[in-house]
């Protein structure tokens, strides 16, 4: 009996040793021979083996959205790998639905290019480019939201649709020793392709927002890439309900500026939630759009106005205000942007008012 136990013990030890050796070999001996990546069956790029797919594609100027620098903590860098990826990693599974896992969706920052790959990406990512820009203006919209205007230098113009976002690169500074990327919705009208405006809300100890709020200066150079995303007005002709809070204003403003310029006649209401008057911004611009678009109404709502505010507008949480104003939403369409807490609560209100799920579009900043 003890001989048998000893034999099993030795076998286990050998097995463990071999497994460790294999892992070590994989970590140390990286096969860097060139590999080909076939994209959407239309384009083939050659990249050195061993690199994460996200980085390999970026080297070939194909940009996949990514907000965590390839750390597996943002879940934005999904691509479909049809052939050549290894097994799904534990770092990927929390981000992928069962359906996505079945159809080969992977986090491109976690997949290493070890063999020739066949992948599928949304066509619009081919239009994504990297831009060099200069900070043209930097101003406070509220105590914690800054407006940043970036003048594009190279290439000098960007084509985007209202509601899309770009990623800006934060260079190494006190809070990060390597460049990181973060997503920001473009707040300006797409008819101005030579400069874009962003509205950036400070996040305590946040790497990018601390950089923008405490370090960035007019004249600084900024690298960005984009445009990304499918948030934007659907051409249905339905009545529109926009709901936002804080920097969620950004993509809605871009949509409204475009609607005003093109004299879009769709009936539309914009509910904007803030705490007190000092947290409201761009009110005059919204009032101007009201005069340009007779079918548009801006409805700011304060949850806790200061007595000095002498506020005579709507009060209460944005959900309460939407609940009071919207009686039947069955035929309307809604666009929501901002905090996930606000978005989830508003979706519930809209559903209660009869709005079908497929008519609700949102951009969660998380």
């Amino acid at each position, binding site marked *: 009996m003890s001989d048998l136990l000893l034999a099993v013990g030795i076998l286990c030890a050998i097995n463990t040793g071999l497994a460790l050796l294999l892992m070590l070999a994989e970590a140390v001996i990286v096969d860097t021979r060139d590999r080909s990546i076939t994209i959407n069956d239309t384009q083939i790029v050659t990249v050195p083996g061993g690199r994460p797919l996200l980085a390999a594609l970026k080297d070939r100027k194909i940009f996949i959205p990514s907000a965590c620098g390839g750390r597996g903590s943002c879940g934005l860098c999904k691509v479909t790998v049809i052939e050549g990826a290894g097994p799904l990693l534990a770092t990927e599974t929390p981000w992928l639905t069962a359906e996505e896992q079945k159809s080969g969706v992977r986090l491109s920052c976690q997949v290493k290019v070890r063999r020739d790959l066949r992948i599928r990406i949304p066509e619009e990512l081919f239009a994504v480019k990297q831009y060099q820009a200069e900070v043209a203006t930097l101003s406070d919209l509220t105590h914690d939201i800054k407006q940043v205007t970036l003048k594009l230098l190279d290439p000098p113009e960007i084509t985007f649709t209202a509601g899309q976002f770009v990623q800006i690169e934060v260079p190494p500074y006190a809070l990060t020793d390597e460049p*990181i990327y973060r997503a920001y919705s473009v707040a300006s009208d797409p008819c101005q392709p030579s400069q874009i405006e962003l509205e950036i809300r400070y996040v305590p100890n946040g790497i990018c927002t601390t950089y923008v709020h405490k370090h960035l200066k007019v004249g600084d150079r900024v690298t960005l890439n984009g445009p990304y995303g499918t948030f934007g007005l659907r051409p249905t002709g339905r009545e529109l309900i926009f709901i936002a809070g804080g920097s969620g204003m950004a993509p809605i403003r871009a949509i409204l500026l475009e609607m005003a310029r093109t004299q879009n006649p769709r009936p539309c209401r914009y509910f904007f939630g803030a705490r007190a008057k000092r947290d409201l911004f761009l009110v005059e611009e919204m009032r101007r759009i009201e005069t340009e678009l007779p079918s548009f109404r801006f409805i700011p709502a304060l949850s806790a106005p200061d007595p000095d505010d002498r506020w005579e507008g709507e009060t209460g*949480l944005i959900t309460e205000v939407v609940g009071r104003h919207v009686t039947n939403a069955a035929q309307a369409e809604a666009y929501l942007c901002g905090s996930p807490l606000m978005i989830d609560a508003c979706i519930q209100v809209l559903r209660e008012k009869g709005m079908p799920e497929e008519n609700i579009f949102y951009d969660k900043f998380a």
Partner: protein
Amino acid sequence: MKQSKRDDIIQGQMRPGAITRDGMLGVDRRTLRDILDADDAAVRRLGLTHATIAARLRELRAAGARGLGEPIRVDSDLEIRVDSVCGKLPCPFGHPGLYPKEFVEVSNLRTGERVTFTQLNIHLIGTHGFYEGLDSPFRQDPETLARVLGITA
């Protein structure tokens, strides 16, 4: 208690660049075990437990979440804003699952003091008695938490 091999591995997960870019230890050069022991002693000196502190943080987070991303008055002295940013973080102690990068900013309007904690902090405190290392951007000093948030035994 003496630092174990497992503690070494966990401490590795807390270094800059492993889970978060800044790590969870700040300038702290102590072993994880020493950090845990020192904060455990501090919590006991306050007559509290890690579970009580985590429960209060959870309670404040729930109250603040009613502001839907904007600041909201809670109790007589506290103003709380709960919001999330893009991403989720795993527990460095190896628990399965991911914690949203949600932050809870609490201002004590009476004293002017402010603390910011995250969902991961609530888990780390309640389950592991871990408050992050000194000067870590998300270090939660037990005495400061107790004072600013009014946590009593």
